[in-house]
Structure formats: C-alpha cells, structure tokens
C-alpha cells in the first residue's frame, strides 16, 4: 500500500486531496463531514469583504447524456459573517488536527484590510493562506479577485502586503483568464508567495435557454458571466500548470493543482505535471464527499503498480517530456492498424478519416457489415481513427520510423529536405 502522506510547505495531510475553496468548504458542518469522509485538507471558502449572493447561481453543460461536464457559477465569496467563519475554522482544526486547513482570502484592496484579515485568520490556528486572485465575477468590479490576478504589478503589490503580515505559508491562486499564467505567477513568487495554486474558474456563458432566449443561469430574466470549472476545463488547467512547472521562477515553489479533478487518474496527471496536492470541487458538488474513497484507493493502487512508494516519487515526472514543437522528431512515424477480429464495423474510423483526415481507410462493402482496412501508404498517423473507435485496442498505432535518427524541424530545414508533394 503506497504512502499518500503529503507535505506541502510543512502543511501535512494524510493524502494529497484537498477540497477547493468553494461551497463545499464554506461552513463547519460541510468541512467536518468532508474530514469524516477522509479528505486530506480543505481550502476554506474565501473570506473577505461583505457580500450578498443571488439566487440561481449555477448552470452546467451536459454532454451526450452525462450531466455537468462543465459547471458554471456566479456565486461570490462567503456571504457569512467573518467571526462565525473564524470560530468554525478553529473548531474544525481542533476536531481534526491531522488535516490541512488553508483559508482563502480576498480582502479589500488596501494594506490594512489585508493585514487585519490575515492576523484574524492566523489566530484560528489555520495552517496556510490562499490568496484568491482569480474570482472572475462580481469581485472584479470592485478591483478584487481576477482584477488583481490579471495584472502582475497589482498582484505583486498585494502579495508584498500579505507577506508583511503572514506567519504561515501563503499560496497565491492564479486566474486562467489571462493569455499566460506565468507573469502573475512570477510576480507573486518574486513578491514572496510561498506557493501557487491554479487554475481558478474560466469566464463563461454556459448556454442560452432556447425557449426564453435568456442565457443561464437565469436570475430574474438576466444573466451574467460566470466561472467555468469541472471536467471540461481539465486540459486547459493541465497546460497552464505545465507552463508554471517549466518556468525557472515559478517552478521553484510547490503547486496545488486545480481544474476538473474528478478521479484519481486526473489527480495522478496533475501530479505528474507538477502538483504536490490537488484541489477538488465540481466532482464533490455533483457526487458528494464519498468520492474520496476511490480517489485515495485508485491513486494508491496505481502507485503500487508503478512502484512509487510516496507521492514525491512521481510529482513532476512528466514535465520534461512536454517540449517545444520544434524539438519533436519528424522521423517518428506511426500508422494505424485495425484488428479485424475486434472491429464491430461501425464505420466511425472510416468516415472520420474520409471527411476529416487523410482518406486512408479502405471500405469494402458488405451486407450488412462493411470491412475497413488502413491504407498504410496514405496514413499520416494522426490518431483520429483510434480516438473515435468505440472498441478498446481495436485500432493501434504501429511505429514505422521514416529514418533511424532523431530529426527535428530546424535540422530538417537546415538540410533542405523535401516537403509533402500533395
């Protein structure tokens, strides 16, 4: 049984699964239930200036019969009184001293407000602070949330204020609503932030109701841009996470990964690309805290199979394999192969290749089952047929190198090698 113990800047938790700052972490009753279920830690829902939330707060994107592929929210930070939150945080720490308690903060935009808030939070015994520089709605109009995270200079200034008062580790949470997360990440680290977390939600309109013609969520006939999260955003989060892991400045600090983590597989991927812990929200909003069992068990079983004893054995292990396009080997060539014994004759590979790729699949008419075979000379090895095939391992990609040696684009050009003639 692999060891899932996690140490994030000295903040210990029995596993790397933290609940992200969100509705599941906004009060004692939820957090205690989460800890009882086995969650390693929580990031308490953002505390800060007083707000009021609207009714009708979420909307979702469903896909092919599955609900909530992506979730959108227009909820603001905690709308409960600060002293109640602080009292409850203290109580949760007392009852579960072995779990990580991070508190998310978003103070008004002045040094004193930040200092005051940080001191109050530190008095609860919390283990760390997460700075909410990412909330994409509501707070930005007040110059907070993403308004801070989108401007590296402002982010730097606020982190400096925070570091003046902080005695516990500080994690800066980055917004994805920028062309690159790296500038704000660098500014935060240079200003002293001990760690980074990403991504916050992505600004979105999830859809328009085709009966009322009003976008959702519908708040009395109007809607507003919300923050998008859930499985749909995972690939975007992984990319942004990797850019942080590859940058010489931001890669120096630990990262807590966020963005569509629903299963242990997602978590393993985030960790392979540099996350020390992962934060989960949407999956819990859909299924409840009980998913923690499989998150831990699945990750542990996978680690056993791969021979990883602790999570540090694989954190960041995949980062070096993500390189620039120019460094990819042009002599590497694969072609698809269809296993006729596994083929169910659905024709999905054929029509995808025929209409959208390189017309590399031969169709032989049959009644009622057509036969499909790869024209190896035409196949560019794009993977599309394999991706759309509904049968596992029916289509495999077989390596057929064009040349024995590694050949990248720069070298290809230098040698004046010929381009495709069709």
């Amino acid at each position, binding site marked *: 049984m692999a060891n899932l113990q996690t140490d994030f800047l000295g903040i210990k938790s029995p596993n790397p699964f933290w609940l992200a700052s969100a509705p599941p972490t906004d009060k004692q009753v939820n957090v205690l239930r989460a800890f009882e279920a086995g969650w390693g830690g929580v990031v308490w829902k953002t505390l800060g200036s007083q707000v009021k939330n609207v009714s009708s707060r979420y909307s979702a994107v469903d896909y092919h019969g599955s609900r909530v592929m992506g979730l959108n929210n227009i909820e603001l930070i905690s709308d409960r009184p600060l002293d109640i939150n602080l009292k409850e945080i203290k109580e949760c720490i007392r009852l579960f001293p072995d779990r990580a308690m991070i508190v998310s903060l978003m103070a008004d935009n002045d040094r004193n407000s930040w200092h005051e808030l940080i001191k109050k939070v530190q008095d609860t015994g919390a283990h760390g602070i997460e700075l909410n520089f990412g909330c994409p709605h509501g707070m930005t109009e007040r110059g907070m949330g993403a308004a801070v995270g989108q401007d590296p200079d402002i982010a730097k200034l606020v982190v400096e204020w925070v570091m003046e008062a902080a005695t516990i580790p500080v994690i800066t949470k980055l917004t994805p609503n920028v062309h690159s997360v790296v500038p704000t990440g660098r500014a935060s680290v240079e200003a002293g932030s001990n760690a980074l977390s990403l991504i916050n939600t992505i600004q979105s309109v999830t859809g328009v109701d085709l009966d009322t013609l009003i976008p959702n969520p519908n708040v009395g006939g109007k809607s507003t841009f919300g923050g998008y999260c859930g499985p749909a955003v995972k690939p975007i989060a992984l990319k942004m996470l990797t850019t942080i892991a590859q940058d010489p400045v931001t890669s120096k600090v630990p990262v807590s990964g966020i963005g569509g983590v629903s299963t242990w597989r997602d978590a393993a991927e985030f960790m392979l690309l540099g996350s020390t812990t992962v934060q989960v929200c949407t999956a819990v909003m859909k299924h409840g805290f009980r998913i923690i069992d499989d998150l831990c068990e699945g990750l542990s079983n996978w680690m056993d199979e791969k021979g990883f004893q602790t999570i540090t054995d694989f954190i960041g292990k995949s980062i070096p394999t993500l390189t620039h396009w120019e460094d990819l080997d042009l002599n590497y060539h694969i072609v698809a192969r269809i296993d006729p014994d596994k083929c169910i004759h659905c024709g999905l590979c054929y029509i995808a290749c025929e209409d959208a790729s390189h017309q590399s699949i031969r169709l032989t008419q049959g009644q*009622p089952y057509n036969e499909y075979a790869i024209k190896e000379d035409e196949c560019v090895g794009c993977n599309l047929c394999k991706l759309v095939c509904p049968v596992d391992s029916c289509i495999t990609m077989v390596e057929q190198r064009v040349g024995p040696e590694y050949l990248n684009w720069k070298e290809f050009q230098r040698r004046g090698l010929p381009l495709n003639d069709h």
Partner: protein
Amino acid sequence: MIRNNRLVKEEYAANFSDIHPPFETRDAALVDANRCLYCYDAPCTKSCPTGIDVPKFIKQIVTGNLKGSAHTIFESNIMGGGCSRVCPVEKLCEGACVYNLMEETPIPIARLQRYPTEKAIAEKWQLFEKAVPTGKKVAIVGAGPSGLSAAHVLARAGVKVTIFEKEAKGGGLMTYGVAAYKVTPEFCAEELEYILSIGGITIQYEQELGRTIHLTQLRQQYDAVYLAFGVGLARRLDIPGEDLDGVVDALKFIYSIRSDGYPAVPVGDKVAVIGMGMTAIDAATQARRLGAKEVTLVYRRTQAEMPCTEAELNLAKTDGCRILWLAAPKTITGYNGSVTQLTCSEMELGSPDHSGRRSPIDTGRTFELEVDMVIKAAGQTPFESLVEAEGLAHKNGRVAAQTNLPGVFAGGDNVNGGKEVVDAVQAGKDAAAAILKFVNHG
C-alpha cells in the same frame, strides 16, 4: 369446448396490453438513444427493407429535434409508427446492431422509433409538402401497407390517388392480421388517418377487385393502376376432417379478435395451431390470452427451419404454448361434426428442398392430440383465379411488379408471396417511383 367470454374484463385488458410499452419520458428514451454509436453506412439501416436512416433519427432524438426524427423515419417508411410495433427487428435492424458484435444488448431501435412517430401521429405533425397537382390520377387496389405507402409517395408528388379497399377499414394486415398486443386497432386507425392527412388520397371501402371493380374499367379511368391486394387465401392442409367445426383459419381468427372485441371471440379448451410462422405465433399466443387451457404449436420441421424469429418463439413459450417439432397434421377426427382429435405424423429431416431447408419426411409413425380446435396457419396462397380472371400474367398466382398490362403495376404480398409489413412498404415506394416515371414521361 369452444366458447367465448372465458375471462373477465381486467384479464382481457392485461392479456392484450402493449407488449413493448413506449418510453415514458424523454429522459428514458435518451438513456438508450445516447448509447447509439451513430455508425457510418450503418448495418441497422442496411438491414431495414425501407432503409430508414436509423443513426440519424436516433441522433435527432438526442438533439431534441423530434420533428426531424419523425421526418427521417417517415421519409423512408410512412408506416414507421406501425413498423416500430410489428417489425421482427431481431432479424432486421436490431439484429444487425454492432453492439451484438460486442456481445452487448443492441440499441432498442424499434422502441426508439416509436418515440417520435407516436408523437407525430398523436400531434398530427405535417412533415411533408405536397407538389403542385400534376392532374394525373392513379388507382390503387388495396389499402394495406403497400398501397398506402405508394399512395403517400404519389400524393406528395401531386398525383390524385383513389384506393379501392375490400374491407371496411384501411391498413390491410396491419389492421386485421397482427396480434392485438403488438398493435391496437385504434392505433391502426390513427396511423391511417395520419397517412391520409397529406391530402389527395381517397379510399373507397368495400370495393373488391373482380366483384365490384374490374381492371379494365380502372385502366380506362386512371393514368395508372397499382395492385396491392396482397394474399389472402389460407393454405389448405388437404387432410381429412379439415371442414369440421372447430377448424379455423388463423387470419380469420386474428381478424375477429381485432374486429369483434376480445370477449366475443370463441376459443377452444385445447387448441392446436398448425405452422410456425409469425401468424401461427400470433394465433397461438392470442388463443392462450383469450383463455384456452392448452395450446400446442405443431410444425413439421425443426427449430432450425422455423420461419418465425426466436423472439417470437420465446413469446409463445412464455405464454405457455407447447411446441411439437417434426409433427405434420395427418387427420382431424370429429364427433357430431366437431373436432375432437388431431392425428399427426412423426417426421424426420431429409435432404434440402427448393427453399434450401431440409425437407420433412414421414416416418410412418403417428400420434394423437386431444383437441377441440385446430387453427390453420400454414401460410397463405395468392388470389390465383382473381388475377387470371383480370387478365394478368402470373406464376402460381403471383404477379410481377411490372405486370404484362401497360400502366398496371403490382407490389407487396401479391408479388412476393407474403413478407413483412416493412417489405410491403418498400414495394409501395418502388412502385410509386415506377408509376411516376410512367405517368410523367409515358
């Protein structure tokens, strides 16, 4: 003893309720619709005699375009609603579903097809536009699936259609010849009305070719004639005792169930059904459902040669019908003019006959069944004397799709000898295409 009124009202209702109930909600339909892989050049479509674009209509259920879905179905098969209830899908679309190759349950295509078509019929969606009238007139003999299918295509093309039907209702065997638990007479009436709602189609009921109307007269009055009168005469067993009281024709039996109401239909205590086709199953199961104590299906070949599908056979078994394979009726014995016993020959399989199936050979051994009713479902024969009298060239009563008479076309059971509803619908489409070519271009 043969008698009616064997059950109480609730029992009749339960026994004849819908065997394949529709999806109750859109969510329920979506569970299965979303499983569809949306195959390209799909095996299900290629296995449908009318070529319904199955993946397309299922995708349209998923996208919430139910009118489009119904249009996709009806464009290929105007009786797509009825077919979703009566088609032997296990040997057609569902039997070809690629999930079968994964050893998984196929997509319930018939049930999904029922979903948009039922809505379209109930809400009377007009999904087709009619071309400007061409001034052409076509007569159709028979308002069964083939005649109605041809009529709809012709009406869409702006042709004025008159259908001559010998019964008092349209729909043909769909209305008169299918088990009531598959499709109700009420649904058949609604479906007929829906087909006719395109306009330009008139049905003259109780008009029978060879009696009240004649081909020569139709040829004079119309630009073309489509013969879709099907087959009808029950194949005789040609054994002693066939004319005793209690020996009935399966189609007549089913007809009375559909037209007289369940309590009115008499059925025996112990019933033998001769044959193993769809009609034999429909008769056997319904005899049980009317209250017969024992029903035995008697078939001269084995399960490997039976014309019905395995699903149909299982239905008969779950209804408690007994199956006797390799048994051929030899003599029906009676007492006071009524059936008391069926003597059967024990058969064995010999070499393949012209149908490619191994033919049964009499072993010389016999056995007796105590029965008070014998239902004959050994197939139907074409109206040979009728076609002969009307001057049509034929082969054992079957006519060709393009008959020997100019401007006279034929299709459906009177050409193919008796196949599924869906085959008749396709024959009607093919005939309509040929007729349009004929009337518009000579």
